[in-house]
């Protein structure tokens, strides 16, 4: 049997970063941010973009300081065995929840829109099988798939562009009516960027270590641009008050245009976006399995296999969208705060211990 191959190129890293964030968020983001920030929701999405940018930049710096050891070696050097265990366990729980949220969100959307006749569990099981099969062979496989799927993302870009001159600027004015509103809605914007944390685990696998920072930044910028643009277009077209009332504003938007052959864009956008979801699921599943296999000293493949069950169970608690979003609101802030603390702490310690580790390498 071939060993698991985890090496990726820097372009594949870019695509993985870009698509690790496209979750259920992109469809409901406009509604999430317009609740608090009203017409200036897009500004908070733009400001929220600082989070993924910081993550990829700090991640690259950390690994540069420890001369690209892999995550566990790095963590053990910096924190010792026990703290490494605790931190990784927290990340594991975080990824488990993220994956469960994405999976249940996907199932909720499918039974809402195009497959009303299926049970959500069927959709979840099928998605898990797809995610399992994709991530079973390691990161290299996923890198290749994301490379292919990246070009499909442009369709998600193109469809909202259809609406660009149909909106009304008065819906976006006045640009800012209160900084505190924008800050309040930052929470919702940050959730849509969750998933970026996988960069802390995959950076050491990049073969070409020269342009990690720029690849990460470009990857995040693409997603930030996509998010900001969709929010801008949705709010300019239907206004913030209506956008905040809808469950999936983008689906409403694309459903409102009558086309002759394909009726409307709704099914197409769900198809493309569904493929992205499978891919996001596999990325997170891969990183999750990597964590678990190292934590509990089992092989990557078997942890990949056994992990399917716990998050299916977890995801089944979040069926029905209002339940899911209320739980996301409660849980997510803690994880994001944890990630921020972890990355700043690691950056500090790694830059202090930098010289020692470099010397050891020599």
């Amino acid at each position, binding site marked *: 049997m071939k060993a698991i191959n985890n090496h990726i190129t820097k372009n594949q890293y870019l695509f993985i970063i870009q698509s690790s964030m496209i979750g259920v968020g992109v469809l409901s983001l406009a509604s999430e941010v317009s609740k608090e920030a009203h*017409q200036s929701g897009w500004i908070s999405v733009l400001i929220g973009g600082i989070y993924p940018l910081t993550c990829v930049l700090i991640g690259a710096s950390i690994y540069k300081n420890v001369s690209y050891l892999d995550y566990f070696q790095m963590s053990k050097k910096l924190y010792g065995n026990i703290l490494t265990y605790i931190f990784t366990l927290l990340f594991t729980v975080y990824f488990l929840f993220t994956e469960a949220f994405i999976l249940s969100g996907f199932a909720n959307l499918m039974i809402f829109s195009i497959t009303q*006749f299926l049970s959500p569990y069927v959709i979840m099981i099928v998605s898990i*099988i797809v995610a399992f099969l994709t991530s079973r062979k390691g990161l290299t496989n996923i890198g290749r798939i994301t490379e292919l799927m990246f070009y499909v993302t442009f369709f998600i870009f193109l469809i909202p562009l259809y609406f660009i001159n149909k909106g009304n600027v008065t819906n976006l*004015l006045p640009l800012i009516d209160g900084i505190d509103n924008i800050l309040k809605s930052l929470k919702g914007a940050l959730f849509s960027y969750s998933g970026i944390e996988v960069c802390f685990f995959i950076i050491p696998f990049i073969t070409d270590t020269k342009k990690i920072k720029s690849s990460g930044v470009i990857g995040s910028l693409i997603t930030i641009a996509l998010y900001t643009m969709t929010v801008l277009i949705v709010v300019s077209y*239907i*206004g913030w008050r*209506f956008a905040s009332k809808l469950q999936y504003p983008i689906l409403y938007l694309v459903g409102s245009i009558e086309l002759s052959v394909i009726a409307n864009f709704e099914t197409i956008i769900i198809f493309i976006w569904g493929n992205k979801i499978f891919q996001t699921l596999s990325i997170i599943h891969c990183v999750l399995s990597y964590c678990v296999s190292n934590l509990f000293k089992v092989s990557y493949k078997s942890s990949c296999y056994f992990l399917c069950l716990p998050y299916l169970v977890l995801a089944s608690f979040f069926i029905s969208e209002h339940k899911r979003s209320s739980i996301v609101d409660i849980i997510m802030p803690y994880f994001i705060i944890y990630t921020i603390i972890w990355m700043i702490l690691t950056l500090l310690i790694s830059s202090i211990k930098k010289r020692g580790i470099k010397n050891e390498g020599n």
Partner: protein
Amino acid sequence: MRGIKIALLILIMMGFAGCYGRVPIEGLAVLAGTGNDLEKEANNKFKNTIEFFVFKEEDKIERTVITVNSETAYTAYEKRQIKMKKNPLVGTIRAYVIGEERAKYGIGDLLDTFIRDQERNLNTVMVVCKGKAEDIFMLNPVENSTISEDIKSELQSSINSYFLTREMEIKDVFNMYYQEGRRIMIPYIEADRGKYVDTVKISGIAVFEKDKMIFMIPIEEAKYINLIRNSNSKGYLSLVNENDRTKSTDLFCTSKRKVKVSMENDKLIYDINIDIKAENKMNTAGSEGEPSENNIEMIAKKIEKQTEDRLKETIARVKQKYGVDVFDIEKYAIAKLGRDKEEFIKDSFKNSIINVNVNVKIISTGRLQN
């Protein structure tokens, strides 16, 4: 072996795709339109009418109308279902017709229904009708096979007259309902029982406050309101010679409006600029001796003057008679002053100053020189 495994997996997954739980086409009633009424005598109960196609033989399509009383929007659905032989397909509805009394009672529940149901089409039209919606469906259509289709195609063809708006579909109604500083304004129709043919006609515009209709503007009066309200709308402006009607001028105009808002001494000032591009369709009013260039400019000036006067007259009348913004200009004030001033802007509409400026440019004179 691996290929076979994956192929098998994909085959199994394909089994999950399909039209499970759907009624076959023979068992479907293809809805064409629905009507909603209020029964004032029967304790404000609702009355729901549907019009649907009946496919009998090949190439023979008929229509039927069913009416039921109900407490809410969907109890009607339930009650109707024990009368009907087929399952209704709501995605095909062409027109929602609302009786005048129902519109005055409030249509919030209907709007909610139309948004919430994923199956419903967002490109249907919504109109208010004089009297009962039920009576509209009792008409006998000739041009189309259903009244609902009549209504929809009539609205779609009406955009070249009276400067009527293109925003008449249900998604535009949702936008008008939810966006700040706007109000729902939808066509008001009435039955037109002709000598030979029954049809419906647009006889005005129904104006709403939130989800309740407050008044109707007759179409002749609505023409100039439309000219101010709707950008990129089309219609005819004429110079009428009362003494000799063969010596008149007709222009086919496309309007474009721009609104600027400013504040002065706690008074809102709206500057509305209307650019009109006109095609000369008929002109016998011009004097014989003058050179053609002057003649065209003269007509443009005259139309400009006349339109501006009428618009000013309209604005004064609207302020006095209706007292609410029917020009769709408050949204610009809110965009300028901020959301928290919404109440102030609404209250101060009567006292605000609305300046209007018309520019007419004749871009074509047809085959003739002037």
